[in-house]
């Protein structure tokens, strides 16, 4: 088997997992299971990042999202008395038609975009593994992408200030 087709097989598996688990997050009645499904989504996305040869983004995805942010989600859900947060999603069932259309469009665009990306990384049929360089990631982040990087930090600072304000008011 050619390596490139192995890449596509992995990709198809990971993309399907990501979409199925994301759908489960939206439709599950138990909030804790929804968070667990979101963990699966994050891990699948990390796998796709690995496939398009950005291991740093993949590991940060696992470390930050699965390792920290979703633990926080789980904490908040449990703090709000877990057996009562299970929701009955009547409104979602009522609007099943439009929801399915939206979900279908999103799924198709996700597949299309990531597959296109995969092709640009690997070329049409040739498999090559690029040498990873952390220095390149860092220098790109602080030169080409400096503006988004700094804007993100301002956004985070605003969030911190807001959190402190809310805490002070109480």
């Amino acid at each position, binding site marked *: 088997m050619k390596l490139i087709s192995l890449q596509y097989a992995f990709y198809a598996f990971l993309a399907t997992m990501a979409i199925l688990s994301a759908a489960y997050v939206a439709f599950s009645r138990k909030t804790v299971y929804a968070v*667990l499904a979101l963990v699966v989504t994050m891990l699948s996305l990390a796998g796709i990042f690995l496939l398009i040869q950005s291991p740093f983004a993949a590991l940060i995805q696992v470390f930050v999202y*699965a*390792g920290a942010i979703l633990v*926080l989600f789980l904490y908040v859900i449990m703090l709000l008395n877990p057996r009562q947060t299970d929701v009955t999603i009547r409104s979602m069932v009522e609007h099943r038609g439009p929801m399915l259309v939206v979900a279908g469009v999103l799924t198709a665009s996700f597949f299309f975009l990531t597959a296109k990306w995969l092709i640009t990384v690997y070329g049409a049929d040739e498999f090559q593994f690029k040498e*990873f360089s952390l220095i390149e990631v860092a220098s790109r982040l602080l030169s080409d992408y400096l503006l988004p990087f700094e804007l993100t930090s301002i956004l985070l600072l605003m969030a911190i200030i807001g959190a402190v304000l809310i805490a002070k008011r109480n």
Partner: protein
Amino acid sequence: MNEFLIYSLITIAKIGVVFGLVIGSVPVVVLAERKLLGWMQVRPGPNRVGPWGLLQTLVDAAKVFFKENIIPDGVEPLTYRLAPILVITPVLISASVIPFGPPVTIAGREITLAIADFDLSLLFFFAVATLSVYGIVLAGWSSNNKWSLMGGLRSSAQMFSYEITLSLSIVGILLTSGTFRLTAIAAQQAGGFWHWNMFLQPLGFVLFLLAAIAEVNRTPFDLPEAESELTGGFHTEYSGMRFVMFYMSEYSSVFVMSSVIATLFLGGYNPPFPYTFGTSWFDGAIGLFWLLAKIGALVFFFIWLRGTLPRLRYDELMMLGWKILLPLAFLNLIVTAILVALNWPGWVLGLTGVAALIVTDLVVSQILWRRRRAAG
């Protein structure tokens, strides 16, 4: 045989050895803990089974293997069964990046004594190791027991509070060594104990040690399973094999965390005196011996803490994590970055770290003393 097959066979062999080492360390560490705690509390510890009580953990293991696996009424069946697996798997996977010795040459083939050796292996360790919190939280939630739930809640809050300090305190090492690769970080500390990162990053070492103890839920940070408050904490409702998996994951994570501390700060497999490793299997064994000796010392330190310190209160835990350790980790990062950018020698870094430690100690003890006096 082609190259791919040989590579796979070597990797499978390495996985077997490391798995055996990590799992095999559990009965040893458990027995050491019971014996040492016994001596620290002026009692003999286990001394009935076998000479000197040495077979006690084996007998315990045999007993617990044959115990009934009870699933209580009212638990969430799927996550209740899944939780012990989710706790122990990340621990075992994260052991795969630890270099157990220098690279050796066997039959003309260079073999790295780590299962996986790649750039970013340190990041991989942290990314995987943090995932074990899900098992603990799920165990607490699915047990349908208030104490278990409290244990799971405490565990998640504690994990993500101390994770930030844990990961920030190693950025100093990343700055001085310039790599995420654990084998390279270990190799850089060769040539005597004064080359160890512990002396280059004293503040980072202390912060990492404290955060690591919190991360593996050991005393004085063992709030998720505080016996006197929560019966057994998150694993109260577990019995038999499922309980053993929690138990094994706790002690194997102590082993794995100790080996990472040893690799990052205590020179890894390098002996404390200058020694140039050759590539024979014997040099690999020497490296393994020194790494195991350092792990043993760290495990002893963990047990010693358990025998000495009382458990922190929950608000004290949060205060220590967010108001003391985290700002110190930021300070360490900024000062290290400036000194590395200015290209100053290593001993300046070390002295700055020691000074910061002393100042922190004085300031914190002053504050605590004033507060206690104000409270009367």
